[in-house]
């Protein structure tokens, strides 16, 4: 089950905790993995750790031209067509709305949502020809529930979900699925920034009583990337310890 041998995957934001966990799991299932991110040295470390079948294609997702070229760059690095796109890269620029600057809004939408559109558009072309594809957007529970101080981030993540549903309908007949994974609170550099009081407050809302781990999200990604999940499309898989049951 869930064997990814012979498949090629691109993981954006592979320098982050979630992206690295997803890349490790896809690789462990046999996929060729192309790691993308902005910090090349971190990508190189991860690629070295994974060994064979791991490649690097660095890109800055706030630069449209780089995003448009990333799928081709990844395919060139791996020497094969892209089967699995994991749009994982995401940033936050939190602030209450009266304090939110235009650039905080624009940057978050551009990196989180617009880059997903550009990557999916580029990936779809080859996937349609090959009649196979798995597009997975890593969104967030707050895209569905909202969260004060994150109007930009929540909008970008909700946008990913709507985008995925529309694209899923467009390409379903070509054996391409488009799904989202919505992590809840996962232990990561992003949640490390929270203070103890904030963490304690969060834990009271999570029935599972703990933050999630990158591996929890990676397991969901492996499933949605697999051939076995071919009948699942346009869905959002919530992985959040029960904090929101939607």
């Amino acid at each position, binding site marked *: 089950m869930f064997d990814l041998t012979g498949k090629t995957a691109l993981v954006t934001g592979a320098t982050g905790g979630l992206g690295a966990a997803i890349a490790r799991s896809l690789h462990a299932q046999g996929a060729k993995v192309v790691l993308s991110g902005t910090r090349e040295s971190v990508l190189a470390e991860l690629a070295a750790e994974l060994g064979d079948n791991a490649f690097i294609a660095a890109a800055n997702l706030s630069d449209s031209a780089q995003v448009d070229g990333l799928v081709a760059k990844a395919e060139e690095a791996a020497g094969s067509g892209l089967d699995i796109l994991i749009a994982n890269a995401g940033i936050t620029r939190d602030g209450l709305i009266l304090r939110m600057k235009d650039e905080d809004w624009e940057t978050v939408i551009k990196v989180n949502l617009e880059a997903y559109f550009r990557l999916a558009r580029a990936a779809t*072309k080859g996937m*349609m*020809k090959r009649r196979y594809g798995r597009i997975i957007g890593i969104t967030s529970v707050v895209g569905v529930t909202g969260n004060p101080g994150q109007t930009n981030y929540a909008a970008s993540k909700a946008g990913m979900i709507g985008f995925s549903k529309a694209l899923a309908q*467009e*390409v379903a*007949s*070509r054996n391409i699925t488009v799904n989202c994974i919505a992590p809840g609170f996962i232990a990561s550099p992003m949640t490390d920034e929270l203070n103890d009081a904030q963490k304690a407050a969060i834990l009271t809302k999570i029935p599972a009583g703990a933050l999630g781990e990158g591996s929890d999200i990676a397991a969901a990604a492996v499933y949605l990337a697999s051939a076995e999940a071919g009948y699942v499309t346009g869905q959002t898989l919530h992985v959040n310890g029960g904090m929101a049951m939607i």
Partner: protein
Amino acid sequence: MSEVLERVRKIVIDHLDADPDKVTEKASFIDDLEADSLDIVELVMAFEEEFDIEIPDDSAEHILTVGDAVAYIDGKLKS
């Protein structure tokens, strides 16, 4: 039969897995050859690649039959 028609027919037959006898100049992609909207987009992309031309969306909308495609491509290649 023109060379362009032959190349267009080959793409259409391959892509839509259509019966070659049905792929005439008058054949409508949607009505006669059972193409869906996504097939049309793919065909247009395949034409662009085959003939190294660009077919803008507003032109693509008017390419409904095999003959329409041939006429459009002929015009592009001559211009």
